């Protein structure tokens, strides 16, 4: 603040000087400065006049008697204010949730270990490799649990099976060229390319259960996957719900308090 050439420091000293709150040494210094500054002298006069005008303000007498009656000071039993508790608990839960998330990200390898289990179960679900080698290959379409084409899944999950199938296939159904280029046989060549063994491959059906719909990826599987969430997820969900619930409660309590005021 530096208006009219007087710094705030000078204004502050001037104010303290008027009230006699400058130490002797400081006061002498200020008086020397004051003697050399006409602007400061003018400010001093103004401040003194202002102070006098303020002191001269009429004293407003109390308009009534403010004596207390016993009823006025009866301690009203107030309900304990739980709002800060809820607010703190909500914030703590939210912070803990963030900490758990951060911990999971930082120590991802530790937490990701349990994630292998669904893969294992998928492998089991797709069929044991040994069993599959003996039985004809079945490609399950429209697997709802995976949301993918069953054939793609089966081939993708158990490469061993795929290799077995390829090896078992007769000439002409051999693996794709090593160069990675996939040659699509001519249309008229397709029927001859299917061997009798390959004919036993039925999409979505086992040979001995012809016409029967196999539903290995039923609701039981889906529910087991939901329940099989890693513990860290349950903790995160719990903390999230807790933070949200406590936060809402705190807001409701606060709004109620405001209304009663």
């Amino acid at each position, binding site marked *: *603040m530096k208006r009219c050439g007087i710094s*705030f420091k000078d*204004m*502050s000293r*001037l*104010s*303290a000087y008027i*009230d006699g*709150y400058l130490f002797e040494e400081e006061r002498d210094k200020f008086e020397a400065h004051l003697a050399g500054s*006409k602007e400061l*002298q*003018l400010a001093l*006069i*103004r*401040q003194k*006049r*202002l*102070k006098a*005008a*303020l*002191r001269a*303000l*009429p*004293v*407003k*007498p*109390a*308009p*009534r*008697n*403010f*004596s*207390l*009656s*016993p009823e*006025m*000071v009866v*301690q009203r039993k107030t309900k304990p204010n739980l709002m800060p508790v809820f607010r703190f608990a909500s914030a703590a839960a939210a912070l803990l949730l963030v900490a758990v998330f951060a911990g999971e990200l930082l120590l991802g390898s530790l937490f990701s270990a349990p994630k292998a289990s669904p893969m294992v179960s998928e492998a089991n679900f797709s069929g044991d490799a040994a069993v599959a080698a003996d039985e004809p290959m079945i490609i399950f379409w429209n697997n709802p649990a995976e949301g993918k084409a069953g054939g793609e899944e089966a081939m993708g999950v158990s490469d061993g099976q795929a290799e077995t199938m390829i090896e078992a296939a007769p000439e002409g159904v051999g693996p794709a060229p090593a160069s990675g280029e996939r040659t699509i046989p001519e249309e008229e060549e397709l029927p001859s390319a299917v061997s009798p063994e390959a004919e036993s491959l039925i999409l979505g059906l086992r040979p001995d259960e012809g016409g029967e719909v196999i539903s290995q990826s039923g609701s039981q599987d889906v529910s087991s996957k939901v329940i099989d969430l890693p513990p860290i997820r349950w903790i995160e969900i719990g903390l999230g719900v807790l933070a949200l619930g406590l936060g809402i409660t705190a807001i409701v309590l606060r709004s109620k308090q*405001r209304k009663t*005021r």
Partner: protein
Amino acid sequence: MDEQALIQAALQGDMDAFNRLVLAFQDMVYNTAYRVMGEPGAAEDATQEAFISVYKKLHTYRGGSFKAWVLRIVTNACYDELRRRQRRPVTPLEPELDDGELMESAKWMVDDAPLPEDVLVKAELDQAIQHCIDALEEKFRVVLVLVDVAGEDYETASFAIQRPLGTVKSRLARARKKLQDCLQGFWELLPPRYRLSDEDSA
């Protein structure tokens, strides 16, 4: 009965003793509240709340200046009342113009009572000062009222606002500067003997 004896009696539950303290302090408390709040109704509310607080907190009084202790409670009551009124603004009583704007109410310049010139000028000056005090920020206003209007020393003001002495000095300097600026235009409307011009200081 002296102040300390009344306090002791009030602590024992003697309501009459406490009310004698109320009578002794109520003008000082109301006047401080009025200057801080700038409105009689608000000042009354703050004063009543302050005395109720004094009664309830009397057991926490640990000696020293009882007046300073009461001023601290009044200051807090004023802050509370100001906050409450900010949350629930009071509808102004000033008349409105056709376009809905509030009419410029230079209330300190309007007084129909047939007063002698000096009294009238003094009343106008008082109202102008109160108008400018009201325009100050709360923290500056409180210090200015305690020191310049109520005439308390810096130590009492420091105790009342629960801030160090340096803060009182700095806030007071700023408050005085702002008040000076606010009143600058008004001084010029006053009769010459009330005015402060450069010639006065020459």
